[in-house]
């Protein structure tokens, strides 16, 4: 954890400061442009109201809520805790397993139950596979934002292989409902371990190829370096998390710093942005953090597969889940950052209140701060590097 700079007593953003990326101040009539909700690069139904001065962005006002599906209200109206899990899946449809993990962890902590070690290992394997799948979407679509279409399809092909592993395990490709309270819905199928190992060996050279094709391409580097710089103090003040925060050079990963599951038994390290191509915290740093995290995830998966113990995949839990009255905030590291569930129980079989602290929502709120002064083309890349999933932003 690096030292954080001191903030001014009252943090206010400065919309008035405009400097073009060409370096001089230009002033002409401002124009308001609507980017989205139907726009190719807003990754869903995000609407950005942009005030532009020529191509230079003066201000960005995000409008969200187009995909609001009342997750929290639904969760309060279920008949039991288990039923919330399919809804959790749909928060972040690119990384459903990680959402489940967070929710399940919260409920298990409320119930004060220990799950078998095999379950924890399988959860880690699945969560890391899902992290790779999610990062593949992130970097692939980021390539599209930058104008390179081919890397996207390479990424999607690799993601398909991961999804096939999931389908083999729990029967669904996207929204798994695989982590259940106290365990898993299915044990791993017999051929899973071999297939997962096969995937790991296949995937490592693919990362390198992807890097050669996109990450270290000079055009791409020039497009992303020094763009959308998110300074450390602003990142922490806006509670950014995940690759957003690590891209700004903060060595912070919940898997290591607020340990859950069996991550502490596995050797790995969080990757942080170092400003190799430009400033620390620019768009390229966030991209490279994702790329390197995939490599780390492969390492974690390989170790977890090797250490996978035998055993049961369901802890002994009561048939009707009734946590004691109380409240809990549990958080895990999802591909997009810290996903927390704040659950209040009133002792009945239904959660009284479920609040999802969605990382994409929080990360998106910093978008106006980091995109002022850039160009429209930069905004597209910055929005892409935040890696939002609108399902999670709007819940």
């Amino acid at each position: 954890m690096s030292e954080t700079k001191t903030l001014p007593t009252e943090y206010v953003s400065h919309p008035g400061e405009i400097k073009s990326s060409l370096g001089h101040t230009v002033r002409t009539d401002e124009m308001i442009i609507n980017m989205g909700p139907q726009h190719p690069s807003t990754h869903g139904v995000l609407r950005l109201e942009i005030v532009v001065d020529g191509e230079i962005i003066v201000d960005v006002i995000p409008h969200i809520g187009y995909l609001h599906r009342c997750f929290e209200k639904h969760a309060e109206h279920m008949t039991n805790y288990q039923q919330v899990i399919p809804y959790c899946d749909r928060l972040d449809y690119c990384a459903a397993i990680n959402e489940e993990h967070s929710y399940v962890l919260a409920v298990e902590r409320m119930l004060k139950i220990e799950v078998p070690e095999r379950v924890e290992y399988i959860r880690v394997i699945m969560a890391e596979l899902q992290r790779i799948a999610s990062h593949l979407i992130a970097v692939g679509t980021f390539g599209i934002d930058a104008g390179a279409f081919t890397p996207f399809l390479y990424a999607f092909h690799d993601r398909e292989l991961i999804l096939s592993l999931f389908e083999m395990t729990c029967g669904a490709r996207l929204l798994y409902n695989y982590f259940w309270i106290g365990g898993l819905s299915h044990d791993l199928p017999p051929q899973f371990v071999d297939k997962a190992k096969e995937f790991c060996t296949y995937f490592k050279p693919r990362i390198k190829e992807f890097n050669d094709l996109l990450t270290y391409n000079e055009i791409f580097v020039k497009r992303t370096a020094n763009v959308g710089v998110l300074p450390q103090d602003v990142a922490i003040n806006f509670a950014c998390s995940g690759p957003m925060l690590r891209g700004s050079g903060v060595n912070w990963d919940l898997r290591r710093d607020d340990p859950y599951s069996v991550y502490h038994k596995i050797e790995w390290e969080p990757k942080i942005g170092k400003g190799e191509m430009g400033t620390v915290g620019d768009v390229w740093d966030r991209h490279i953090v994702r790329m390197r995290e995939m490599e780390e995830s492969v390492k974690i998966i390989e170790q977890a597969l090797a250490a996978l113990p035998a055993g049961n995949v369901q802890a002994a839990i009561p048939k009707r889940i009734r946590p004691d009255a109380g409240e809990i905030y549990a958080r895990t590291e999802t591909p997009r950052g810290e996903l927390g569930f704040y659950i209040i129980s009133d002792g009945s079989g239904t959660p009284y209140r479920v609040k999802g602290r969605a990382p994409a929502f929080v990360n998106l709120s910093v978008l106006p701060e980091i995109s002022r002064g850039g160009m429209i083309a930069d905004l597209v890349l910055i929005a892409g590097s935040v890696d939002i999933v609108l399902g999670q932003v709007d819940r």
Partner: protein
Amino acid sequence: MEAFQNLGFWGTLLVTIVLSALPLVFVLLYALVTIYLEMKVAAHVQDRVAYMRTGWHGVLQPIADFIKLIQKEDIISVAANKKLFILAPYIVFMGTYGAYAAIPFSSIFIGANIDLGAFFIIGISSLVVVGILMAGWASNNKWSIFGAVRSAAQMISYEIPTALAVLIAVMITGSLNLQEVTKFQAGGIQNWLIFGGPLPLLQKILITPFTLITFLILFVASLAEVNRTPFDLPEAESELVQGFFTEYSGMRWALFYVAEYANMFLVAGVAVALFLGGWESPFGSFLSGPIWGLFWFIIKGMVLVFLQIWLRWTLPRLRVDQLMYTSWKVLTPFLFVCIIAIGLILVL
């Protein structure tokens, strides 16, 4: 052309119409082929297969697309400037197609064998900018106007390196007539301008690096002229939706599309005529002749078109300021160096 000298008014008119329609037939056929080629190359580069259902490996798909586009409803948005909106695609197509007049397809076929051929092509293809600006303005859509303004800035900027590169070829050959330039490069691959042309050995060795660089720059600049990746900012779909033709659909859109593909071959044709020996056979007099000439010209052009397609599916896109940087701070200075060096070598 000399064969059609004394045919009287009607005869000349008929011959003119037929002759000027020939490139149009070529352009349309070529567009179908290239659209197919582009889709197939894109797909295979991305480990896909693209069209497989219409005909053998989907060869009929471009025709099916064309039929679909003809049938589509003609939509003009209420707020659009109707006259300009309708006119714009034709002007864009005219600008592109007009330039085909001076392209030497073969030793016996060139639309108009004018002495200022290269100059004419640069001039008339600027008409495309007018059409694009018109389309962007008339669409009454903020994204369209962005695309149009970007496009205008880009094309005008990149005319400079293009013109300078053409100038270098003209310096070596001493003619603006593309037919003459082609004939200058007769005698096989070693006599192409990209390898210095048929000059004395010492001069040739000295000049070759500069002509190679010039050809490279001409190719890069031509990519920008036709709005292809990495210079496809005017129609950057991730930023500007579809740029200046966001509001177009159906046949008008198809006209833009055909114009874009025709433009691709146009710039390739200019580069071929200037630097790659035009319709001359790469093996000297072997396999040469008017028909073989046509074959060689199209093959060479298609190789460059394939290169454009290949680049498109490899590279990301530049930003506006980087685009300008490339033109004004990289390509143009390099060409000035080349001009001076080649000039000095030529007077040697």
